[in-house]
């Protein structure tokens, strides 16, 4: 699972999370995120040059630029439409690069002038070899903020004991628009292969490729074939997606479309990080087995796997329970999952739980008091159901934190350097490091156990600690009032617009 650390380093070095405090990118970044997963496909952005320039660099493109052509709309096209320029560019790219597909992506300008990109593309399709796929805007500019809030509310209201069921469809998310286009314009009816699945290769967290590869191997042992990963491969592998009996999906909207068009059933994972540990891995595959009527062969492999790792797992759990930890979390909404991972599955002895959160979290996300109370209640319920007797503290004072430090041997926390000042060894919190196979889970378990046995004690010479950073918005300082105000304006102008 070395890919996990490489992903962390390379992705986190890009300042995406910092930019997200002040701005959000347009949905085109999502369009490109999906299309660039496909081989031998070119992208035409029907936009002015500025969009063609800045969307070449998006965070989802990891450490490369997006391969995007732009028609460079000018005054002329705003008045008369993009027909001539778009047709010319489609023909040019088709002749010079012979791609299997050309994706035509709209911009705010074509949306405002209501340019008929589908009509234009249809008119030229017979003259080019590449399949032209037109992305249709489901929202103007980008998806609105309400999905995030809806998801938070869903999380608050659902029980800890059940996996989250999300009704959020992410209409207008650029990624979803592309998936819908693939379902509508590329997929073709197929004879269904009974023991087969498609897996959506999107949002599986750090180390995603390894996770999916190992998931595929385990499914194969259970007699289940992965028909295709979506969106991955070239346009031909998308065409045959309807062969699968079941879709395992991260975004629901395209799966609903595929069910309507081809009858393909789907299994939706709303939040991968809530699937953690042996029990959840079993539940995951049993659910797939149920959909495919393969419960017996699934169960047989699950039992083999449990048998293989059980004794070592119990040994490590016992070892982990010997030292006391204080968990420091930046939010309250995932305390139940954090406890499940560390207390229940890793066997960590949790002495206390501190939530040090943005005091304006509820306000900034349009959540009322009842939702916040529900989050706190869920955290308490999680403690109770897991027999965890640790106290929960919300935004404890500096003095209180110092007292709590006397009762623990190490901290489980994020990367804010302020925690290094507490003078305790630190175990980095990897809440999203969920695994969907036993081998990967045990690798993580071995790592966690080794770190608990010999946790990293940060030096008091840590350069970062020569500054007093903001408790929440690291690496900001109290005096960075311009940045703080820019964030407030962004919150007011957008984040709270459709609360």
């Amino acid at each position, binding site marked *: 699972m070395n890919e996990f650390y490489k992903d962390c380093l390379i992705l986190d070095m890009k300042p995406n999370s910092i930019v997200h405090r002040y*701005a959000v990118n347009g949905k085109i970044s999502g369009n490109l995120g999906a299309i660039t997963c496909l081989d031998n496909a070119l992208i035409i952005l029907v936009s002015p040059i*500025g969009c063609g*320039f800045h969307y*070449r660099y998006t965070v989802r493109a990891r450490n490369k630029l997006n391969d995007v052509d732009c028609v460079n709309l000018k005054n002329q096209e705003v008045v008369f439409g993009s027909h001539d320029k778009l047709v010319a560019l489609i023909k040019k790219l088709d002749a010079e690069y012979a791609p299997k597909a050309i994706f035509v992506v709209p911009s705010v300008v074509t949306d405002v002038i209501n340019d008929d990109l589908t009509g234009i593309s249809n008119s030229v399709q017979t003259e080019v070899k590449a399949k032209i796929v037109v992305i249709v805007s489901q929202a*103007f500019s980008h998806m609105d903020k309400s999905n995030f809030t809806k998801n938070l509310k869903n999380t608050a209201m659902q029980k800890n004991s059940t996996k989250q069921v999300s009704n959020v469809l992410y209409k207008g998310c650029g990624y979803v628009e592309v998936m819908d286009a693939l379902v509508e314009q590329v997929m073709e009816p197929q004879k269904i292969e009974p023991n087969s699945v498609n897996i959506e290769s999107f949002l599986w967290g750090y180390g995603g490729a390894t996770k999916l590869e190992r998931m595929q191997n385990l499914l194969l042992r259970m007699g289940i074939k992965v028909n295709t990963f979506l969106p991955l491969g070239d346009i031909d592998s998308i065409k045959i997606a309807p062969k699968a009996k079941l879709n395992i999906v991260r975004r629901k909207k395209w799966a609903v479309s595929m069910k309507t068009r081809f009858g393909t059933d789907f299994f939706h994972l709303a939040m991968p990080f809530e699937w953690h540990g042996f029990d959840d891995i079993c539940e995951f595959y049993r659910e797939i087995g149920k959909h495919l009527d393969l419960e017996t062969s699934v169960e047989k492999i699950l039992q083999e796997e449990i048998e293989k790792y059980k004794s070592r797992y119990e040994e490590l759990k016992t070892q982990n329970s010997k030292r006391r930890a204080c968990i420091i979390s930046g939010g309250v909404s995932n305390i139940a999952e954090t406890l499940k991972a560390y207390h229940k599955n890793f066997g960590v002895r949790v002495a206390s739980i501190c939530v040090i959160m943005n005091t304006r979290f509820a306000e900034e996300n349009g959540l009322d008091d009842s939702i916040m109370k529900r989050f706190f209640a869920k955290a308490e319920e999680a403690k109770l159901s897991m027999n965890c007797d640790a106290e929960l503290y919300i935004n404890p004072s500096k003095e209180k934190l110092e007292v709590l430090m006397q009762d623990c041997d190490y901290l489980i926390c994020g990367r804010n350097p302020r925690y290094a000042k507490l003078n305790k060894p630190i175990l980095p919190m990897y809440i999203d490091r969920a695994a969907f196979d036993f081998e990967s889970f045990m690798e993580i378990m071995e790592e966690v156990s080794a770190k608990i046995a010999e946790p990293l004690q940060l030096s008091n010479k840590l350069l970062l600690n020569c500054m007093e950073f903001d408790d929440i918005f690291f690496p900001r300082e109290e005096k960075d009032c311009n940045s703080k*105000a820019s*964030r407030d*304006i962004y919150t007011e102008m957008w984040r709270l617009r459709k609360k």
Partner: protein
Amino acid sequence: MKAMAGCALFGAVKMLSGIKDAFVLQHSVVGCNYGTLILQNVHKNYDVRQASTVIYENEVVYGGHELLAKGIREVDKAFCDDAIKVIFIVSGCVPNMIGDDVEGVMAEVACSKKLVHVKAPGYNGDFDSGAETALLSLFSFAKNCSKTEAPSINILGVSADDPYAEQDVAELQNIMGSKVLVNCSLHDTSIEALEKLNAAHLNIVLGNGVKLAQKLEKSFGVPYIQCKYPYGIHGMIDFLHILEEAMQVDFTAECQRLYENGQSLVRKTAYYLSTLYQLPVALVGDKLHLEGMKCFLRDEIGMNIAVCLDVKAGDERNLEQELKSKNAALLLGTGFQRELARKMQLPFVGYCYPLQDQLCLATGLIGGIGTAHLLEMIINSVLQQDYKTDGIYHQLLDGRGDNA
């Protein structure tokens, strides 16, 4: 086309990013704000002074007037002290298409800050025209004032988003010492400094800013000179000679010191420099940096400038073809060309905006120390280039495979 430069909005926002007590409110869709932030300014995330009104479908139907007024009020409220004195409203494509009366809103909205509109729809104009419009808007701040006692210059065209601006201007001041002072440089300035633009004896236009300089000359009699970015030892000496002539100062000692710096540098790098001599180099850059870098590589290093491309007019698809046809052995450009260089196994040096994949903290690229840094980057890029890692004759096998 594969775009290599932004639109008018990018040019405008970039030029305004260095005014530290001004706020840039983009009246546009979200992507514009995100794009202008992530391509450079995010490296300075300790001082973000920009936001977007976030035009959405509602405004396309009903107009963005209310939204803009709300945006202005929010900025006013967030900066109720004097930290921000001016709000620049940079309007993009959509408000121009739907006919938003930005200036009408500005006239009506209650706001304690001065409001300045910079119209910059992306489909109507390019990066340079947006930059010029933004720079010209700064004229309204200039007041009649007495000249500084010591000879002084304003530097127009350099912006906070330029990755080496801070170090380069500091080095320039270091070289000029107390003989000529930098009165105002747009990469790091304030409204007060803009009000005293006319205190300078001379405006130096590097890249954009000529319209502003012309207006300042016409209205206040401040002369201006358009200069190349002073890369290299001789590039800087030439620059100092221009100042000597225009301002009656004597930089003989400084030029001599630079020359000695150059000698020392050559002594240490002579072998490497001789390997660069007459080799074809491809150069990509913006209006601010391109000409100066071209002169340095051609005149001081002796390279053959096989490709020289202004990003504004550039299409990266054509660049790839040109690199192949002109047999370029080295590529200098923006962060956007790194991937192309990698693909073509070309040594690459990123030296101008956008350098989204490179942090530039320590040393700039001008003067004695800057030239040393630039040479280091060029030579190291060659020394560290992966080349024919599959085997020296691997291509022969590839060829055989193709024919089979």
